[in-house]
């Protein structure tokens, strides 16, 4: 019997958090709550009493803190999946540019300018550099 050699772990992708089994397990409660926001009555219940609503879904302390802080990267670190988090963002009237700006620590206008710069043919790397350094 030979011991199979495990495949080498793939090189991480900078600024990217793959939603894999570990993340899915860690984030289940948070994603479960966000999935409930497909129902307008649940969105209203969250807005009426955020604490009670989060408690109902047994959010972990890290998940609860990230939601309270409106900290998108924190939610992702706590296992949140962006498609589900987008439903939470929608409650606050935030679109994907707003969420992009929150995650990259820039203004929404600067984030949009970075997208438009790519539309003019700039690479992401160049457009991102300009966004960070102005």
């Amino acid at each position: 019997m030979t011991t199979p050699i495990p495949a080498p772990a793939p090189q991480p992708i900078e600024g990217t958090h793959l939603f894999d089994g570990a993340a899915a397990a860690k984030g289940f409660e948070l994603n479960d709550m966000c999935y409930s926001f497909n129902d307008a009555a649940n969105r209203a219940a969250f807005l009426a009493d955020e604490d009670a609503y989060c408690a109902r879904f047994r959010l972990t302390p890290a998940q609860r803190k990230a939601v309270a802080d409106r900290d998108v990267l924190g939610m992702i670190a706590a296992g949140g999946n962006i498609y589900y988090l987008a439903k939470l963002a929608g409650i606050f009237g935030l679109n994907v540019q707003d969420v992009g700006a929150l995650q990259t620590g820039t203004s929404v206008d600067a984030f949009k300018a970075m997208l438009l710069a790519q539309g003019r043919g700039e690479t992401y790397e160049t457009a991102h550099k300009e966004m960070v350094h102005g």
Partner: protein
Amino acid sequence: MAEIVGAYFTSHVPAIGGAIHKGLQNEPYWKPFFDGYQKVHEWLAQVKPDVAIVFNNDHGLNFFLDKMPTFAVGAAAEYHNADEGWGLPLYKPFAGHTELSWHIINALVEDEFDITTCQKMLVDHALSIPFELAWPGVEAWPVKIVPFAINTVQHPLPSAKRCLALGQAVHKALESWQGNERIVIIGTGGLSHQLDGERAGYMNQQYDRFCMDNLSVDPEALTHDNVHEIVRKAGTQGVEVLNWIAARGALGEAPVTEIHRNYHVPISNTAAATMLMEPA
């Protein structure tokens, strides 16, 4: 005998639905994108499909993470849209083609694809927006559908190679179907984009062009990267190109001709693309 008239590929960014709803098609931001559909309208009017096989991905409307099928096939008489969490107006329902669904399901399982079958399946913007773009303003969709939902949400995702093979197996199933329908294949989503993480806003025009240049002539070129490398090149949500690859497989292995392409950056956070292909 049924005929595959060709394939239509398109991005499905939710904001497109908002632009349609608000009538913004001629605004400077949107016009270069919507202009790419004139040719799609003309082509559809000419080839007159009555069935669409659609490869798309659910965004947390029908499937939650408690049960996440890798490949799900619809076998419903009707498919409905529902509130995706944003309280937007609902999209029109779709008529299913249950007999064809079950024919394809039987053929796929016979071919050793262990798919999930769905007699109820909500469909989200990933299916509705491509139809709104293709047949704007119609009262009811002129085609019945057989929808496929591919897991592009929770890793591990199916490989590009497996998605191409799935599509090719669907093609084989369509060849043994005894109906006389005119079938269009649809692949939705992409191209490069990333919504989450510090790399949010990432797009990759070089990789998108590689995908578009090869999809018609050498789709296997898109299957050499594993999913991790596709995420690196296309972005976390750009991996929706898997839907395009499966759709290309369903066009079959005989030569196909690209008859239309439009590529516009950005629409929302996405490099938006539209393509049409026909059997050569």
